[in-house]
């Protein structure tokens, strides 16, 4: 009785890991719904667009944080540091920090603060989904 269950677990576990964290998936699905509502032509989020968002120097925000990399460094797998306060920041890349993007309230709060600081405006649902998609693959 036990053995088939164990066997099944061995088979299923890696598949689940590949499918990602259910909380993160729900957050991405919610942003996808919002992106579709904003643009009926929305197809899917893009890690490439997310990386461009991450690396772009934006003119509209706080001069201390022209890009995401100002705090998160050019490598999201590395720890960063808040450019305004000096406080250390845990890596954003999901591969080294699996708890990233798993609390919808925290995710939305962080986008609200950081997009204002870096881009000088709120991020669109498309940008948020692209960013998470990029970080999920990092």
């Amino acid at each position: 009785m036990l053995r088939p269950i164990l066997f099944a677990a061995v088979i299923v576990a890696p598949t689940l890991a590949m499918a990602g964290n259910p909380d993160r998936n729900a957050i991405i699905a919610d942003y996808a719904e919002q992106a579709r509502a904003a643009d009926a032509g929305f197809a899917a989020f893009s890690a490439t667009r997310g990386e461009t968002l991450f690396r772009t120097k934006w003119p509209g925000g706080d001069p201390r944080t022209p890009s995401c990399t100002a705090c998160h460094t050019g490598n999201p797998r590395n720890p960063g540091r808040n450019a305004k306060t000096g406080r250390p920041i845990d890596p954003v890349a999901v591969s080294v920090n699996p708890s990233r993007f798993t609390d919808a309230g925290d995710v939305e709060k962080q986008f609200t603060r950081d997009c204002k600081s870096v881009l000088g405006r709120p991020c669109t649902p498309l940008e948020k989904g692209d960013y998470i998609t990029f970080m999920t693959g990092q």
Partner: protein
Amino acid sequence: MRYSIVLATLLASTAPASADDWAPPITNKLVQKECGSCHMAFQPAFLPARSWEHMMNTLSDHFGEDASLPEAQVAEIRAYLTNNAGDVKWRGIARKYMRWVAADGAPQKITENPAFLREHNFLDRVWNDPKVVTKSNCLACHAQANSGNYDDD
């Protein structure tokens, strides 16, 4: 002579932070998380309750940042900070900092308190060290700041 040196060394290494360089550490999980998400969570002893009250009422412009939180969280954090404020608990480092706060004052910056300034009278090259970034980055030099120990200078 030798014994007294040994004794003094022993005492220095085992003694807790001297009372006036010790701030009661934050024990509330929400305060630790939310007040510590962009900067170190500063202990409430550094400011009077009026200061924390004002700060918690102006989170949408928190030193230029939008630090808004859901109202229930604001209420919990406000209660903790005001209940443990320097002029309420009057413990440890609060005695040193509250001395400089006017009776009706609600200062917002700990780093402008004369008690802070007189102990941080450094050359520019110290403040310009890249690991410091800003005067409010206690942890750059006070490794135990999160547990309220500022006695390592």
